[in-house]
């Protein structure tokens, strides 16, 4: 007779249940949680940094922080938002460590994307990489994560007005870069 363990049912368990178990120190539940969430965290980090290896390293840091701080999570249902906040904090910490946020509240002097032909292999991550780190962070949080301006201001510590300007300018620059890519593609096709 084959005796199945509780862990065998984890893949079918709803996430809040897994979070509750992981909070009590259940490593198998945490493992299942990581396997479910790793893709989202890695995608977010890839949008942020356009470097798959670095994105995976940062995602790993985020997931480890989840394990270490899960007991601080008050409501199991708030796990998604809490995880996103952790991810943003890890990314911001990385930026600060690399001094990328210095003078972040100044709009003037942010780098402009090149209007030259961007190349055929360009994708969203590359287009994002042409934005200054703070602009990119605000744009990704707004468009990819659906965070409100106020939430972004709270998460990044930037003034609300700066966040709005960053998102507007960032989206505009992104559209310009992507449009240039589109034009190039059409030229190549004809």
């Amino acid at each position, binding site marked *: 007779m084959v005796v199945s363990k509780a862990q065998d049912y984890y893949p079918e368990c709803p996430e809040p249940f897994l979070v509750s178990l992981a909070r009590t120190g259940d*490593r198998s539940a945490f493992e299942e949680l*990581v396997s479910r969430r*790793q*893709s989202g965290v890695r995608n977010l980090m890839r949008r942020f940094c356009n470097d798959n290896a670095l994105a995976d390293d940062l995602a790993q840091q985020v997931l480890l922080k989840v394990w270490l701080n899960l007991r601080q999570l008050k409501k199991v249902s708030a796990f998604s938002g809490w995880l996103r906040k952790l991810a943003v904090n890890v990314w911001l910490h990385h930026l600060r460590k690399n001094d990328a946020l210095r003078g972040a509240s100044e709009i003037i002097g942010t780098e402009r994307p090149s209007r030259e032909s961007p190349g055929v292999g360009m994708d*969203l991550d590359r287009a994002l990489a042409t934005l200054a780190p703070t602009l990119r962070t605000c744009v990704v949080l707004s468009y990819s994560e659906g965070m409100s301006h106020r939430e972004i201001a709270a998460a990044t510590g930037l003034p609300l007005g700066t966040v709005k300007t960053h998102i507007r300018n960032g*989206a505009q620059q992104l559209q310009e870069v*992507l449009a240039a890519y*589109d034009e190039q593609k059409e030229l190549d096709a004809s």
Partner: protein
Amino acid sequence: MMTKYREPDLHSLFDQANRELEGERITARVVAQTRTRVMTRAVLALVVMLLSLLVAWQLLALPLLEFAVLVSQLLTNPLVDLGEGWVALAFLPVNNLASLLVLSTKGVLIAWKKLTGSSLVR
């Protein structure tokens, strides 16, 4: 596939860019790291505990010893001066504060048992 960037809907573009990534390796790495963290914390806690014990030993050992010596001297001091003859030697085991304390405790316990019929000490 990203098309028509001239009027790109950035929201849908971001949605399209988010693809499901294979996660066996990263999951294994994260879980392994949690184990390492737990071990590191345990070792760190042990080292801190040992260091605290050492420091406490260094700071408290001598004062504690002196206190113990003082207490034992106080308890073994003769209650009645019987000189230094054989009488003093014979009464030495009972002629001190410690014996007095033991005998009076024993007396109280016996009296309590006689009076109430139950023992104070189980």
